[in-house]
């Protein structure tokens, strides 16, 4: 109890810090400063007019107004803002309750609440940290792996602040971008818990999530997604400058539309390492650990599928044809993967299962994530078909080979699916295969050149970087957390069930 009092006091003290940040006046971006900082345009639309001196001469007002209009920064389109708001809601729904129920149904009744808790609380913790420092470090400024703390506590971001999209002259409110990205960080960390379900200590999950978020999610998100935005690229020279300041993998030209590497490979690897470090569940291989409710799992998988349209199509940051492409691809690839996993299981094991169909859908969703805005619908179809069967192997043959108790197949589905998707993005983004190709922001059109081999090599580099970085950071974080609080609950608590031992509750009273 004494340590609980200390923790409460610490939280109360820490919450005073944001208040202090609010007190310090934020500096508005001066009109002449380059519109930079992490796919974010610091555009202050209204203050430019306010800065006009009161005694402005009446003469030549028309010319001045015309200049102002020409220099006036773009304002968000209401449709884009509405779309981004909806997309963010969809991604929140993907985690709570989508992922929570998908995972929850797969564990035994005695551990159902522990999964729901871990998902919901990790989600919440990461959103808080994102608002405090995550957004700033991921998208606050230039650098290969980290931004800076210029936007700590979201300093300087107002309703008028704008963030760049992938189209020149099109912006969305920066706060929309902050919120949208927050849900991505949060779901990534929540995904990991499936790998060590039914035996991990709750405090260890929270501490690990904080460490891994800070030292792995943020730098990988920054490395893959950070750039100054299309309006900063006007000629070859500015392209070079933007590339030099951008994230490490972005600069290399890696294509990851909605987070195949940043979210899925990242979480998959961290989960697998966790499964190894934490060890198998007691009774694994001997006792029945069958899912207690595939009904819940199917509900969760369905919520994930529906929500994923926000995840993928929302990653376009605006509501246009590319969003429609991402939307269609998310539908087609997922359906294809469901079919291919189901057929694969039917042929291989004799019966098609509900868990297989649900898992197939998720595998397709994972694989199309990096590809959705870059490949054509038939490319998406093929990606889905391939992901369905490869991930089926991932949770069977590969799982046996790896020998870890990755309880909810985080690596088998998200890790393997993410790798498949990332590599196939390099193939099917090719214009010759129906893809969009790579966009040339100097010419403001798709580049006619595309080398599948070269792009796949870049994709592979992104995959390898993510695997290594995630594995190393995760391993260290697990060890640190083990020293701090211990990773596993004691045997009796594991036998009794985490719901009672960790949370003092029972999910179902029979």
């Amino acid at each position, binding site marked *: 109890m004494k340590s609980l009092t200390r923790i409460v006091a610490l939280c109360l003290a820490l919450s005073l810090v944001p208040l202090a940040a609010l007190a310090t006046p934020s500096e508005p971006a001066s009109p002449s400063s380059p519109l930079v900082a992490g796919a974010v345009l610091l555009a202050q639309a209204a203050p430019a007019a306010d800065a006009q001196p009161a005694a402005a001469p009446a003469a030549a007002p028309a010319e001045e107004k015309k200049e102002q209009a020409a220099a006036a920064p773009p304002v968000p389109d209401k449709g884009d803002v509405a779309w981004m708001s909806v997309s963010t809601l969809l991604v929140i729904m993907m985690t709570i309750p989508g992922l929570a129920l998908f995972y929850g149904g*797969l564990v035994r009744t005695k551990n159902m609440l522990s999964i729901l808790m871990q998902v919901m609380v990790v989600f919440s913790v990461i959103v808080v940290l994102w608002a405090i420092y995550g957004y700033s470090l991921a998208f606050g400024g230039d650098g290969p792996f980290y931004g800076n703390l210029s936007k700590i506590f979201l300093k300087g971001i107002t309703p008028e602040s704008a963030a760049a999209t992938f189209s020149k002259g099109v912006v969305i409110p920066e706060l929309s971008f902050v919120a949208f990205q927050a849900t991505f960080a949060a779901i990534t960390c929540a995904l990991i818990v499936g790998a060590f379900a039914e035996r991990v200590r709750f405090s260890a999950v929270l501490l690990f999530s904080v460490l891994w978020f800070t030292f792995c999610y943020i730098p990988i998100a920054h490395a893959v997604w950070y750039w100054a935005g299309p309006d900063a690229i006007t000629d070859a020279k500015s392209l070079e400058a933007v590339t030099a300041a951008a994230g490490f993998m972005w600069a290399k030209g890696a294509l990851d539309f909605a987070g195949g590497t940043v979210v899925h490979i990242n979480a998959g690897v961290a989960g697998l390492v966790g499964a190894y470090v934490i060890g198998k569940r007691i009774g694994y291989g001997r006792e*029945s*650990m*069958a*899912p207690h409710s595939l009904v819940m799992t199917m509900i969760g998988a369905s919520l994930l599928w529906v929500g994923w349209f926000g995840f993928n199509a929302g990653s376009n940051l605006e509501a246009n044809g590319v969003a429609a492409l991402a939307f269609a691809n998310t539908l087609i690839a997922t359906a294809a993967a469901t079919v291919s996993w189901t057929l694969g299981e039917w042929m291989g*094991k004799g*019966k098609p*299962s509900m*868990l*297989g169909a649900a*898992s197939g859908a998720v595998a397709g969703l994972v694989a199309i994530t990096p590809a959705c805005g870059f490949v054509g619908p038939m490319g998406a179809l093929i990606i889905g078909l391939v992901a369905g069967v490869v991930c089926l192997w991932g*949770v*069977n043959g590969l*799982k*046996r080979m790896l020998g870890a108790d990755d309880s909810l*197949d985080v690596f*088998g589905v998200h890790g393997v699916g993410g790798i498949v998707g990332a590599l196939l993005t390099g193939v099917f983004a090719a214009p010759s295969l129906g893809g969009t190709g790579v966009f040339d922001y100097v010419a403001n059109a798709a580049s006619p050149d595309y080398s599948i081999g070269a792009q796949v090599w870049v994709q592979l580099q992104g995959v390898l970087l993510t695997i290594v970085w995630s594995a190393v950071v995760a391993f260290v974080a697990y060890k640190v957390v083990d020293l701090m609080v211990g990773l596993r609950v004691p045997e009796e608590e594991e036998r009794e069930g985490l719901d009672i031992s960790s949370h003092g509750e029972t999910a179902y009273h029979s």
Partner: protein
Amino acid sequence: MKLITAVIKPFKLDEVREALSGIGVQGITVTEVKGFGRQKGHTELYRGAEYVIDFLPKVKLEVAIADELVDRAIEAIEASARTGKIGDGKIFVYDLEQVVRIRTGETGNAAL
């Protein structure tokens, strides 16, 4: 007095109940149980994890019965619960020392 315990296939419960009513048995207690004899279980597959489930769902019914009725009760249960396939179940007969009707306090045969 005897206590008859019968483990039968769940879908046979209604038939057995009716057959017992037919010979004048007023009440039975039913529990859902799991068990196996010679009947094999089944295999469940969850992704890569295969589980062989030996136990099959069964229904256990218990009837407290007067000595004169025992043979007819056994016959009734046997006939109505039989399908002819493995897993039909078993009937056990125990000696019953005392029976009390809680509402009235009656004991012995009057309580049956």
